[in-house]
Structure formats: C-alpha cells, structure tokens
C-alpha cells in the first residue's frame, strides 16, 4: 500500500518547503487580528507541513521528528493555555475569558489586555489544532495501528 519510492525530487522539495510552511503558519497566526487567519488556520498549515513530511518521506522518519508523546503533550498544552487564560480572569473576579481582568498582572490598559488575551488563546488553539490534525492523520493513514504499513503487496 504505502511504498517507499525514494524520489529525490519530492524529498528535496519537501525539505525546502517544510520550514517555510511552518513560518507561514506562524505568520497566519500572528496576523490573525488584522487579516484573514488565526489560530485554527495557522495550526492547519503547520499540521500540513508535518503531513507533507510524512508523505514525502515515510511515517517512521516523520515520527522521529515529532514523536507521538510530544504530540499528545501538545494536544493537552493548547487546551491548557486556552482554559488557563480564561481561568486567570476568573481568579481576578471576572467572567471566564474576560481578558480585561488581565490588567491586574499585566502593566497595560484593558484594551491592550484584551488584545494580548486573544493572542494567547489563539496560541492555544494553534497548538491544539496542529497536534490533533497530526494525530488524526496518523490514525487514518496507519489504520489505527500507529505502525508503518509498508510493502504489503511485495
């Protein structure tokens, strides 16, 4: 099914593209306030860079760079950042995700506190979306066994 073609053109181009795709994912995340984009889209682009790596090389190679343990940690870390950002506002007697309460610990006015709070939850969204997309991809492509399915027809 999945065969190791060892194609130097695809591998070289994937190696060139992957860092730029990841930088572009961060760009989409950072510019999410003022232009189309945001955490979800940036996370999808970063996950696409990993999926490109896994399809151009193989899954074993890709898992060496981004192991499933790290992937699981990132899944939880994004949710933790999102919920933690909201919970800090609750600690300072605001509503959940009421970022203006961040002025208690940030030396800014409430408008800029809302700006930074939105950036923080977008960061959480980005990390979780990236990790979950990669996780779904690994589940689908390996049929749930999380092992490389190779050379079944040879």
């Amino acid at each position: 099914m999945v065969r190791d073609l060892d194609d130097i053109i695809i591998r070289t181009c994937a190696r060139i593209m992957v860092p730029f795709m990841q930088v572009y994912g961060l760009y989409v995340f950072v510019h999410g306030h003022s232009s189309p984009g945001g955490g979800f889209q940036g996370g999808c682009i970063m996950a696409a860079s990993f999926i490109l790596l896994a399809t151009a090389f193989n899954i074993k190679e890709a898992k060496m760079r981004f192991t499933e343990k790290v992937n699981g940690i990132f899944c939880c870390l994004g949710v933790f950042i999102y919920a933690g950002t909201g919970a800090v506002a609750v600690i300072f007697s605001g509503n959940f995700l009421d970022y203006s309460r961040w002025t208690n610990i940030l030396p800014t006015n409430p408008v800029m506190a809302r700006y930074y709070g939105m950036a923080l939850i977008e960061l959480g969204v980005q990390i979780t979306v990236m990790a979950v997309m990669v996780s779904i991809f690994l589940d689908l492509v390996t049929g749930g066994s999380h092992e490389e399915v190779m050379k079944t027809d040879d």
Partner: protein
Amino acid sequence: MTLIILTMTAALLVAGLFFFFAATVGFLRFPDLYTRMHATGKGDTLALLLMVAGLALFNLYDNFCWMGMVQSVKLLFIAVFWFIANPTATHAVLRAAFESGVTPWTKDGTVIIDKTEGEGA
C-alpha cells in the same frame, strides 16, 4: 508613467489569463492523465507567475509606500513557492500514476511502455 505601468499590468494579467485558458483547454481536451498533467503543470505555473507579477506591479503603483512594497514582496513570495510546489506536485502525481500502472495514451492503442519490464530497474 501611469500609462506605462497600467499597460504593463494589463499585459501581464492578459498573458496570465491566456496561459490559464490554454492550461484549462489542455486539461479538458487531452486524452489521458499524463498529457493533462503536462498541460496544467506547465500552464498553471507560468500563468500564476504572470498574474502575481501583474498584481504586484499594480499594487506598487496603487499603494506606493513602505507597506505597499512589503505587500508586493509577499505576493512575489507566493509565486516563488508556487514555482517550487506545483511542478513537484505534478511530478509526484505522475510518478504515483506510473507506479500504479497507468499506461500512457497512444493514438492506435498500442502499449508503448511495458510496466513489468521497467519494474525494479
């Protein structure tokens, strides 16, 4: 000056549209996968470069400031990565088709490439 820039923009956009049109005609009219990818892989790549160059030029004229230049450079980045990605994607699709045994089209239906012969070479 304005006339020159607008004429160049229009020329680039029309040239890009021509190549997009040619690629689409090739995609619809050619007989099999290889010839179709041959048309779209080359036509779309050049056409997008021409379109993006025209848009970047127009953006420089329309919005001549520091941010406008940055936007034009961003547009050119799209063209650069498209130039890397689209031929590679075409190559990957064609390579996968060849590996899975799609035979090239010939006019009289004869098989010009024997798949079992080239295997493992």
